[in-house]
Structure formats: structure tokens, C-alpha cells
């Protein structure tokens, strides 16, 4: 159970990115987060694993206060939270397998991992993760040699290495060809359905939300404006979420 209570984030330049946001995510749910660009979706996801420090409010995960954790505890929390990014965030000049291995850093002895030494169990695990996303044969390639869709699959394999209980996916398909979107979303769906991992996924396209998520929340200017099943988003709600000039496509 992930509980977000009265979360507020004000950036140093005064921008109010999140305004008193509260919601709960039961274990095993696929939660879609929708809203315009700049509505606070990315900030919300990054506050959950504290890549961004919240200004106010609490985030409780299995009754542990993430927002109050010290650095060492935060590392232990982060390693159970996988993250998938819009721009994949792979290290271009490293090999695919090294990028995937990076997902295991939270579990390895710091001194040994600095020498790029991983246990054989971890190495087997990396191969398995890559096989799962269909990239077993690309392990030795450089990340930069892969196509966008393939890079995102490496990003998912990296998250899988963490044995995550939650996966935060920040616009995972926004910089991909629309035809590739479903392939990526299906991998996330499989992690959610087959492994029972909670997925919090921000998305642009409403049809993807309809298709994949159990539940949706919507942000508008940092405020939570909708929380419910995706099919409840009718035209009126749509205008509320995306502004009055928006029109539904597709």
C-alpha cells in the first residue's frame, strides 16, 4: 500500500508543481497518471522515490515514511522501486548488460561493484531480464546502438533487476513511435499482472490509460482533479483535465 498524503512541491524558483495531492495505491494496482505537460506528473513520480524532495506532505509505503528516511534507509527503499523514464536514461557509452546491471547496484557491495564485479547470480539475472524483454542477443552492444524501442526495453530490464515492488513509469512511451507503444506497455502490464508489482505510470494518451490501467488519477496545475476508473472520464471530465480548448482524438 502506497499512501500519498497532502503532498506539495514548490520549486526554488517559486513554481508550485504539486498542490496538496493525496491518494492511495493498493498493492498490485496499475495506476495511470494523466494530465497536461507541466501538470506535475513527473514531479509526483519523482517525489515518490525522492529524486525530488517534497516541500510538504508525507509518502507512506507499507507504513514506512519515505519522506523522513535517512540516506541509508532511502537507498534501501529506492532499490525496491524500479523506475522507467521517458528518455530511457541509459548510459549511451556503456554496454547494454552494464546498463541492466546498474539496476542491481542497490544490492551489491559498494566496493566490489566499483570494479564492475558482480556475482554470478546477478549475471544470470541480467541475462534473464534481457531475455524477458527480448534483447538477450544485444547484451554486448552499446546502448547507443539500439533503437528507441529497444532502449526502453533495456530500461525495463534495468528496473526488473531491482526485484521491484513498485515500478514508476514516467511517460514510458511518449518519445516512441506510436506503434511501439503497445509493446512497451505490454511489458509493463506483464510485470503488473504476472509479478504482482504495483505500477504507477504517467501517460499522455487516454486510450492507453483505458486499455492498461486499473485506475486513473489526473493532475491539473498540480492539483488532483480526478481519481477513479478510467471509463468514468467522459467529455466533461476530459475538459476539466486537459483544459477547455482540448479536443479528444482517436
Amino acid at each position: 500500500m502506497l499512501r500519498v498524503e497532502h503532498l506539495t512541491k514548490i520549486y526554488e524558483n517559486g513554481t508550485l508543481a504539486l498542490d496538496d495531492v493525496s491518494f492511495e495505491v493498493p498493492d498490485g494496482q496499475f495506476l495511470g497518471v494523466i494530465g497536461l505537460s507541466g501538470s506535475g506528473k513527473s514531479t509526483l513520480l519523482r517525489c515518490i522515490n525522492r529524486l525530488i524532495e517534497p516541500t510538504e506532505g508525507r509518502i507512506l509505503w507499507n507504513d514506512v515514511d519515505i519522506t523522513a528516511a535517512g540516506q541509508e534507509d532511502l537507498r534501501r527503499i529506492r532499490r525496491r522501486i524500479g523506475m522507467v523514464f521517458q528518455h530511457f536514461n541509459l548510459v549511451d557509452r556503456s554496454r547494454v548488460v552494464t546498463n541492466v546491471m546498474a539496476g542491481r547496484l542497490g544490492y551489491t557491495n559498494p566496493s566490489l561493484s566499483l570494479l564492475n564485479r558482480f556475482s554470478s547470480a546477478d549475471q544470470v539475472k541480467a541475462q534473464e531480464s534481457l531475455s524477458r524483454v527480448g534483447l538477450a542477443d544485444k547484451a554486448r552492444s552499446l546502448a547507443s546502438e539500439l533503437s528507441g524501442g529497444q532502449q526502453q526495453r533495456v530500461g525495463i530490464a534495468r528496473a526488473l533487476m531491482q526485484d521491484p515492488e513498485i515500478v514508476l513509469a514516467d511517460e514510458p512511451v511518449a518519445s516512441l513511435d506510436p506503434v511501439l507503444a503497445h509493446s512497451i506497455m505490454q511489458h509493463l502490464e506483464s510485470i503488473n499482472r504476472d509479478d504482482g508489482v504495483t505500477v504507477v505510470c504517467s501517460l499522455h494518451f487516454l486510450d492507453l490509460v483505458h486499455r492498461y490501467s486499473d485506475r486513473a488519477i489526473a493532475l491539473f496545475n498540480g492539483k488532483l482533479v480526478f481519481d477513479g476508473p478510467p471509463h468514468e472520464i467522459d467529455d466533461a471530465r476530459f475538459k476539466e483535465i486537459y483544459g477547455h480548448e482540448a479536443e479528444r482524438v482517436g
Partner: protein
Amino acid sequence: MADSTKKRRRLYLVLGVVGVVVIYGLAVERTGVSLDQITSESRQKSLVRIIRSLARPELVTYDFEEATTDVEYYLPCPGAASAVVGAQITVTPGCGDPGQEITIVGTGFEPFDESGRLQFIPDSEFDVTLSLGRFTTDENGEFEVSVTLPDRPSEAPQVIRAVVSTRLGTWANRVQVWTDTNENGVLDSGVVEEGVLNVTVEGARTEVPAVALLDPTNQVTEFVTTGDAITAVDGPASGIPADPLAANDEDIAVVAIEAGSTATAVTVRGPDGTDLSAWRVAVYEGTTGAVVATAFLGDQVEPSPRVSQTTILTIEKIIDTVFLAFVATTAGLAIALPLSFLSARNLMKDVSTTVIGLGLGLLAIPIGVLAGSQYVELQRRVVGEAGRETMFLVLMLVAGGAALWGLARLLFGRDRRSPLIRTALMLGAVVASAAFLEGLYGVLVVGGEALRDPFGVLGFVPGLFVTIGEVGAVTLPFVIGLGGIALAVSLANKAAYWLNTHLGSAMRHLTGYLALALAGASIGLLLGAVVDWLYQLANPTVTVGLPALVGTSWGLWMADRGRRGGEVRIGLTIYYITRTIFNTLRSIEPLVMVIVFVVWVGFGEFAGSLALALHTAAALAKLYSEQVESIATGPLEAVRATGATRLQTIVYAVVPQIVPPYISFTMYRWDINVRMSTILGFAGGGGIGFLLNQNIQLGEYQSAAVQMLAIAIVVASMDYASSRLRERFT
């Protein structure tokens, strides 16, 4: 409204123009721009002379053959004489007064542009020649030159001479030129034939000669006498007692000495074909032991033209220079590499710690470094004299290494251990490293020294080991001190973590205030000690009381800030401190730094490389850290999100992104360093600049030109090579 704006703009324009004129006026005035200097004839003459010399680098040396033709000349005139006619030159008038202009006409020289010198040889007991001028022949091999007579009146006839110097040989057809090195008028080959070599030492007049034989390194291999036993009182054999002749059974030895009226003949035996021309004999007066004369066993025969001594020296020095730049770049790189991360804003801005963590950490640093270095001293005292025994050093190396290996395996093993056991293991590892490194450095020094002779000309390879060992031994207290810091800070972190989680809020704040106040006071005392050392104030109020007070208040202030914000952001503080240090160091030119280092370690390449290394460290740290600041942040965020530590994040997300630009920057810096090292010699930093400076000071522009040429070639080729290599890494 618009009108007044227009007027104001016009006023600004006028003021601007006036300002620019004033600035340029001052600039011209202050820089001493002067057309008079540029156009003055004497200045132009010297310019032409220098440029012509520079255009003729003395790459090769020619020997010259001189042909002279003389006429006798009276100065002042004893009577009227219309002209004196010599074999090839005619002087009109035939005698003259000091300062008078005379005409010299030459005939029968080689036609077309043969040039030569005209000299006046005055009546003097010394070997003096005065230059009258130069001449150049026309198409008939004739010339006519007006010259001024010098102020050298004499009753006796004096001489006017025309000298033509001819270069001997060409590259296609080199000639061997004999130089009478031992000045005995005979061409001595210096090569042993039929078991013996004879040499006559001119000027060695003695009834009872004694002879010292010197090898090419100036070592006396034997000292033999034909008379009674004596001891040399001076000269190369000073203090050595003479043996009877032929008592020596060396391969190369004096076998016969024959005294003559003006010279002494010495016979040396040796294996057939051995060239002894670099060996010397010193002839002594066999009754007093005083040296009479020395001479080489052979004469020098050199080809003309040949590669000049300047060229050889320049090549040696330019190689030194490139190595100087190389050493400086490497040392600077080693310093800049770790520090570049500390001066990268994007990595440092989030670094924060709790108040207690900061306080204990700051306290731990001096304690750690002190404990570490003291431990090395203690180890050295305990080991004592045994530390010079090779066997004991090997024992330390092996035992320390084995212990270190075992501890590292335990420490890096898979099993999780309690923090206390881990700390104990780390302590053990530091202790084992101290023994291991001490042993290693000792073995390097002993082994290197032992191998230096067997390696012969390659002796610099073991020499490197000796240097590494010596430098290592000197820096060992510092290195173990770093280990001590790591240990103490890790302990402090654990303690801080425990205190933060176990103490109540009030106690936590109290501990925080206390720890930071103590830390502040100790920093203050440390700075106070530095100030005291620097200015020798001997005033405890200023050097102890005040710093402690300021430090304590700073600590309390920091703790107060941290109490409100929860954590103290120390990252930016470290960032600003390192940045400031680097910027300061970078703004001091290596040429200036070298002056300080020359005072410290003396003239030469070492001072130069130290100065250059320091500057390189600062410059590279800036370039590197800017590179770190410009990396893609996405991967950084992604790796941080996996729960990686800060160090892991750097290794996995930062390092792969910066390796190519780091290589590129390092090469660029080496390129710059080669350029800089060429002028470090002007300030005593060794390298080719030293030679160049010397030759310019002596007015040897043709030699200076060789060095300039070498610098140009090396810098241009480094430039080319580094830009080609850098292309691959960007």
C-alpha cells in the same frame, strides 16, 4: 521626450569616443611605442644581424681552411710611401696615421663573391688581431675596399692581412680534419698497434718523470714513477702514492717512460686495436710529486661538416623537455582526476549530511590523518634498524600483503557483517597496508639500487623503481593518514547514524550543537596554527583564543541552520572551496611558480615539472569538472533511482560519459605543457629554455636558432599529433 533621449545618446557617443581615444593614448604611452626606435639605423642593423643569424641555425659545424696574404705597414709614417704592394694586396698610401682612411686593393682571388676578412696585426707581444673590415671579390677575382687605420702607432713594421676562410668538405664529400688535441705536433691515432701505443707529451721537462694514467672518466688507473717512491701532491693523481714502473698487471698500463729535454715519451700497452684517444697521461716531476703536463693519448679526427655540438645538446634537451611535460601532465592528471568530481556543481549540490554527521566527520578528519601518520612513525620506530635488512623488508612485504589480501576478502565477501566487525576489519586493513607498503617501497629501493649497475645504460629502469620507492616512503605517512581519515569518517558516520536514530529530539540537537561547536573550534585552532607558523605572531590570543572562538561560533551557527533545515548542505561549500583553490592556482603562470620551486628544489627539470604539474592539476580539474557538469543528467537520475550510493552513481553514470573528453583534454594539456616547458628554462625550470636563454644572453643567435627550430618542430608536431588523436575521442 524623444528629443532629450536623442541628445543624451549623442552625448554618450561623444563621451564614448573621447574615452576610447584616452584609453588608446594611455596604452601607446605606457607601452612605449616609438617610431624612432624602429627607424634608428643602429637598431635596424642589429635587427638585420639577429634575423640573419636566426635564419642560419648552426645545425652543422664546418672546419675552415684559412689562406692569408700579408703586407708590412708602418704606422705612423716614417717617410713618404705611395703604396705597399704585396703578393695579392696593395695598400695605398704605403704608410699612414692612426684614423686615416686607406684603400686596399686585392687581385688574384677566386672570382665571384669570394669573401674574406681584412685584419690589422699590431706590434704586440700578445696574439692580437684587429678587424679592418670585410671584402667581396668581383668577376675578376679583385676587390677594392676603403678602411680606417686603428690607433696603434709603433716604430716597428706592423701587418695588414687579408684572410680567406674556406669551408672544408661538403655533405656529399666530407673531409676528415685532424685536430692536434694533445698539442705535440704529431698526428696520434690513439689506437694500440702491436700491443703498444707511444705518445710524446710536449712541455713535460723533467729528469725523473712519473706518470699517471687516466681513463675517459678521469679516474686514475695507475700512477708509476721511474724514480723513488713519492706521492702526488697535486693534479689528477693528487694524494696517490707512486708504484714502481711496470708493477701493474692491468691490460692497459704504462710500460715505458723516457725523459727528454723538452718532452717525455710514454709507452702504454694494451690490446691491439683498442682506441685510447680519450685516455690521458699526466706527467709528474718524480722528485717532488708536482704535475708538469697532461696530454691525451690520441688526437681527434673529425669529419667536416659534422652535426654541431649545439644540435646534439639541443636534441638532448628537447627530449628532456618533452619528458618534463609528460611527467607534469601525468602528475597533474593524478591530482585533478579525483578532485574534478569535488568541483562539479551538479554532483556536489545535493551532498548533505546531518548536523551530528557533519560535526563528527569534521572532528574525524584531523584525528584520522594524525593517527594514520603517527602509526607509520610508530611502525618505523618499532622496526628500527631491521628496516634496512632486505630479508626483513621482503618479510614485511609478504606478510603485510597476505594479511591485506585476507582482510580484503573478508571485507568484500558476500556475507553481511555487523558494522563493528567491518570497522575492525578496515582497521586491520590499514595496519596491514602500512606494513605492506613499507616493505614494498623498501624492496623497490634496495632492489632498484642492486639492479642499477647490471642494467648498464638501461639503469634508468631500476632507477625509476628506486625513485618510486623513495617517494612512496616519504608519502607513506600521508597515504596511511588518508586511510585513517577514511576509517575515522566511516566510524563517525556510523556513530552519527546511531545517534540520530536513537536519541530523542532534544538530545539530538544538543549533541549536534556540541559536535559542530567542537569541530568548528578544532578547525579554528588548525587555521590559527597555520597563521602562527606563517607570520610567527607568538600571540596566543590571536592564534589560539580568537580562532577557537570564531570556530565555535561558526559551528553553533551551522548547527542552528541545520536544526531548522534538518540537514546541512556541505556539498556546495566543498565545491566553492575547491573551485577557489583551483582558480587561484590557475591564475599563477607556471613561469612564476617555477621561481618558487627553484628556490625549493634547485635549478633544473625537477623544479619545472613541479611547477607545471601544479598548474596542470588546477587547469585540468577545471576542464574536467566542467565536463562533468555538462553530462546528460538522465542516466545520473536513473542510477540514483536504483538505490546506488554516490560513488556507485559516479562510476556507473558519470565515468562512462566523461572518459572520451577526459582523454581528449589530457592530450590537449600535454600539448600545452610541451609548449610551456620550452620556456620554463628562462626562469630556471630546466629543459630547452635554459639553453635558449643562455644563447640569447651570450648573443649566440645561430645557436639560439637551433633551439628555436627544435621548439617549433616539436610543438608543431605535438599540435598535429594531439589534434589527430583528439579527433578520435570526441
